[in-house]
């Protein structure tokens, strides 16, 4: 089979760009993206290709009595219809950690929208119509929707006969994983507390809502294998799950990253990958599958909705005595990333504060609700919403300013986490709060700033023209959060980079090849910057990401600049050593510095650390090319003890603080966020423009779940009620405030260039800051997010 048109991620950055790390160099894929030529997975095209379609369950929990595909198969233009019975091997499930997710439903469906059958046809509409002609008879079962129904003594088990490695330590088979963290003596500490506050909090189900729906193209190959062009967050993790189901060795499943239209955790799990490959191998033709938005809401996991129960105590001088909490995450029908989300929620459950006596329990449930897993912030988001509400409550009880109260208890370098792990790099929590508080506040009644007439666009309700300022009250709120960076709990979190250096057209050129998924975050920009810094070249080619090079790990957990950036840096250093060896061989006898000095590659030349030029790279390399492929690892971590939660589980922490300014129309319950200021420590901003873009984007995803975003699941049927952008609202540019950002750079000496993962921390503190501001404006308690108008008007 030939190559499909468009090799989307092959990018060369021009020689006019000199930028190394620390500069705001521009995206190498920018031009392709603004001209419409960047090939996203949904843009892939191959002659003779078919369109795949997935039939999904219309009910949440049922036995499948029968499936009749005959009418679908009879439709003109249909090439294949496949069900569970057509799966080619004994491996019929997949999953990130626990392989509990059926490729196609077997005898039972466990959530609304579960894949039951797949179709390939010559037109997408034909495929849709064929799927609609498949007759599935369901015998409905009672649905498990919350902790009470999941753990009732007679509860139906969502998964019979579990044999995963968590089943031995959970109190009920409908609990995926449980992680307690016990440190100190909460009962004794409570005795010392002058003030104790309690709260019960609810966090709604948020969707990643990346704009580019799940999609990909599977092309059968002559050796019986398949080449999958796909948008994902981790090519090698996909490969490990896909190949066994197809009955192919991994080398016969080639994967190339196509353009990815955002991810935010929603592409960590497989979606249509196996389905497209199955249909391609069955029909012998290329098969493309593209979800529409409706299907996308069923096609990926969501952020875990949660119930959180907290008790905080403090002395009258404002020092935290203890925290006791219980975090119940709804994992839905399949495990996905639930165990790791539990570990994060528990270990980060008290926030960036010093507290010696803690009693934390986090669990994730199996239910018949939509499966939940990774989303930006990953367990730390839900906890931050609750502990920051508690910190405000406790500050008020003690009678201390809310920011000051946080600063009094702020962790710093050297603080011991509830897991017993020391924080061994800068933790400027109090400083971030100081900075965000010091920013000037937006003017009062800013809707009058344009003149004497109110500009309704700047008021709650906007162009609906619901107020000209009457009933509008301003509020200000603060929050701060802590997020881990990288994969935790003993995971072998490595990355691989292949770097080549050679002379092309009289100029030294570096090529960087990794399997890193560029999902929009700008990793490709940073890789080129690192290569320029380490190798002294201006021309860097970023090779398309594929599985012809070792794993880069996941584009998640704020880890790629740290880990794959670290791998690129490491491979560049190894290339540099080899280049210098060649130089010593060729030119060493001409100058003693070749043997004695620290040598660098700068401006296309070999120079001493004193700046003396020894040779041109062009002359050193001549027609030789130097290539290194190497794995790179950060410091190892440990698992958390299953009874006490103790262990050096995390690699690095990331901190951000927000101040939210809101205006609330208290009569109608409408909220306008006026400003969301953020201060964040990033260790070292490798690309300041991209760093600020990450912070602003994360901030607005936090705003979304504060005031509008929620997947509504019917509590009786467990069916999703709002799977569309008409009914699931994400912030528009009109809902979005200005976002001033203050970036602090305190190096983490353990990390490459001192950098700190950036992407997730701003998503944590944004939500509780907005909630705090709304509480400040309205005086209401508001223990759930998102806040809806009826929560503010009481009607």
């Amino acid at each position, binding site marked *: 089979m030939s190559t499909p048109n468009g090799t989307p991620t*092959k*990018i*060369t950055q021009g020689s006019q760009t000199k930028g190394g790390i620390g500069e*705001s160099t*521009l*995206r*190498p894929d*920018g*031009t392709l*993206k*603004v*001209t*419409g*030529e*960047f*090939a*996203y997975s*949904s*843009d892939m*095209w191959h002659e003779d290709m078919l369109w795949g379609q997935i039939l999904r369950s219309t009910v949440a929990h049922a036995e499948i009595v029968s499936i009749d595909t005959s009418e679908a198969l009879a439709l003109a233009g249909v090439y294949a219809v496949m069900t569970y019975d057509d799966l080619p091997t004994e491996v019929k499930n997949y999953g990130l950690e626990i392989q509990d997710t059926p490729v196609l439903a077997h005898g039972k469906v466990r959530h609304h929208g579960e894949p039951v059958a797949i179709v390939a046809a010559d037109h997408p*509409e034909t495929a849709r119509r064929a799927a609609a002609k498949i007759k599935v008879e369901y015998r409905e079962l009672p649905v498990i929707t919350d902790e009470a129904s999941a753990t009732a003594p007679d509860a139906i088990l969502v998964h019979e006969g579990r044999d995963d490695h968590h089943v031995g330590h959970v109190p009920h088979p409908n609990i995926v994983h449980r992680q307690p963290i016990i440190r100190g003596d909460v009962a004794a500490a409570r005795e010392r507390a002058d003030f104790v506050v309690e709260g019960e909090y609810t966090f709604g189900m948020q969707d*990643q*809502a*990346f*704009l*580019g*729906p799940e999609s990909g193209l599977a092309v059968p190959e002559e050796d019986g294998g398949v080449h999958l062009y796909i948008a994902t967050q981790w090519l090698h993790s996909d490969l490990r799950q896909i190949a066994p189901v197809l009955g192919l060795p991994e080398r016969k499943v080639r994967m190339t990253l196509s353009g*990815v*239209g*955002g*991810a*935010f955790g929603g592409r960590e799990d497989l979606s249509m990958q196996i389905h497209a490959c199955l249909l391609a191998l069955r029909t012998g033709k290329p098969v493309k599958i*593209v979800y*529409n*938005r409706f299907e996308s809401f069923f096609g990926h996991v969501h952020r875990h909705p949660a119930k959180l129960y907290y008790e905080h105590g403090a002395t009258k001088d404002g020092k935290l005595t203890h925290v006791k909490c219980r975090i119940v995450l709804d994992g839905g029908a399949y495990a996905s990333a639930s165990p790791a989300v539990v570990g994060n929620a528990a270990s980060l459950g008290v926030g960036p504060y010093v507290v010696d006596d803690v009693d934390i329990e986090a669990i994730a449930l199996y239910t018949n609700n939509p499966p939940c897993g990774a989303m930006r912030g990953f367990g730390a988001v839900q906890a931050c919403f609750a502990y920051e509400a508690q910190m405000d409550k406790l500050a008020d009880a003690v009678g201390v300013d809310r920011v000051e109260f946080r600063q009094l208890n702020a962790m710093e370098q050297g603080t011991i986490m509830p897991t017993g792990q020391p924080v061994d790099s800068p933790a400027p929590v109090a400083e971030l709060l100081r900075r965000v508080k010091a920013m000037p506040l937006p003017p009062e009644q800013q809707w009058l700033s*344009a003149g004497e007439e109110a*500009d309704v*666009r700047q008021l709650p309700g906007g162009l609906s023209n619901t107020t000209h300022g009457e009933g509008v009250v301003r509020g200000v709120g603060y929050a701060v959060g802590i997020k881990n960076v990288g994969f935790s709990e003993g995971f072998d979190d490595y990355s691989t980079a292949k770097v080549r250096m050679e002379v092309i057209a009289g100029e030294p050129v570096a090529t960087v090849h990794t399997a890193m998924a560029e*999902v*929009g*975050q*700008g990793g490709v920009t940073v890789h080129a910057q690192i290569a320029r810094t380490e190798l002294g070249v201006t021309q860097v080619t970023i090779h398309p990401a594929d599985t012809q090079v070792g794993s880069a790990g996941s584009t998640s957990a704020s880890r790629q600049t740290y880990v794959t950036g670290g791998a690129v840096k490491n491979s560049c250093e190894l290339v540099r050593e080899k280049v210098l060896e060649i130089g010593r061989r060729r030119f060493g006898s001409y100058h003693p510095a070749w043997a004695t000095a620290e040598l660098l590659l700068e401006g296309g030349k070999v120079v001493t650390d004193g700046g003396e030029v020894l040779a041109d790279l062009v002359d050193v390399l001549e027609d030789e090319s130097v290539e290194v492929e190497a794995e790179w690892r950060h410091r190892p971590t440990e698992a958390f003890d299953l009874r006490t939660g103790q262990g050096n589980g995390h690699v690095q922490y990331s901190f951000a603080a927000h101040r939210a300014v809101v205006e609330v129309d208290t009569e109608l319950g409408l909220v306008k966020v006026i400003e969301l200021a953020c201060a964040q420590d990033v260790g070292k901003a490798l690309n300041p*423009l991209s760093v*600020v*873009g990450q912070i*602003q*984007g*994360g901030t*607005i*995803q936090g705003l979304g779940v504060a005031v509008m975003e929620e997947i509504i699941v019917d509590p009786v049927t467990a069916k999703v009620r709002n799977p*569309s*952008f*008409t009914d699931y609202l*994400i912030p*528009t*540019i*009109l809902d*979005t405030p*200005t*976002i001033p950002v203050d970036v602090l750079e305190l190096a983490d000496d353990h990390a490459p260039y001192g950098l700190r993962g950036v992407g997730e921390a701003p998503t944590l503190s944004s939500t509780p800051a907005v909630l705090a501001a709304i509480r400040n404006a309205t005086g209401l308690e508001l223990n759930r997010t998102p806040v809806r108008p009826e929560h503010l008007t009481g009607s």
Partner: protein
Amino acid sequence: MRVNFTVNGRPQEADDVWEGESLLYVLRERLGLPGSKNACEQGECGSCTVRLDGVPVCSCLVAAGQAEGRDVVTVEGLADFAKQRGEQGGCASGASGASGASGSCGTSLQDAQGWSAKGQDSQTGEGTELAPIQQAFIDAGAVQCGFCTPGLLVAADEMLERNPNPSDADIREALSGNLCRCTGYEKIMDAVRLAAARQGEAV
């Protein structure tokens, strides 16, 4: 059915179009112009925004047959469209209203049909001539995943044509039909302000 219309200044003929197909589908799947994106298919996200006889529309909501005999501009043709407008002294460049018989801002049908996009064969896009709004999106860091970018560019370019000196509230209002999930919109605001400022300098 067969649909005849003009896309980026070139006459196009799409055959075997099923009556239910949208303009977006025909552009992407039949004419090889995948720049316009499908992200919601119900007119909520603006990723498929194109200009139909000069008016920005969600092409997912336009039946292909409705485009018969009409003129479409997509992101692929935006650079040439803007260049042509500049050469003709359209409103966006601050010159008098040569773009329409009435002298109003906006591009007349006659103008829209009077230009054509050039071929573009660069693999990397380097050296490509860009519309000012395209360059501003790159320079301001307004592009992350880029899936919303084509629709935003078409919408923002059209707004700057009508309103060369927009206030922030004007920009937000004009772009409120275009969802972006990556940027938090701040750098999109920066990009539009930058394009407006550069336009102003060029006068």
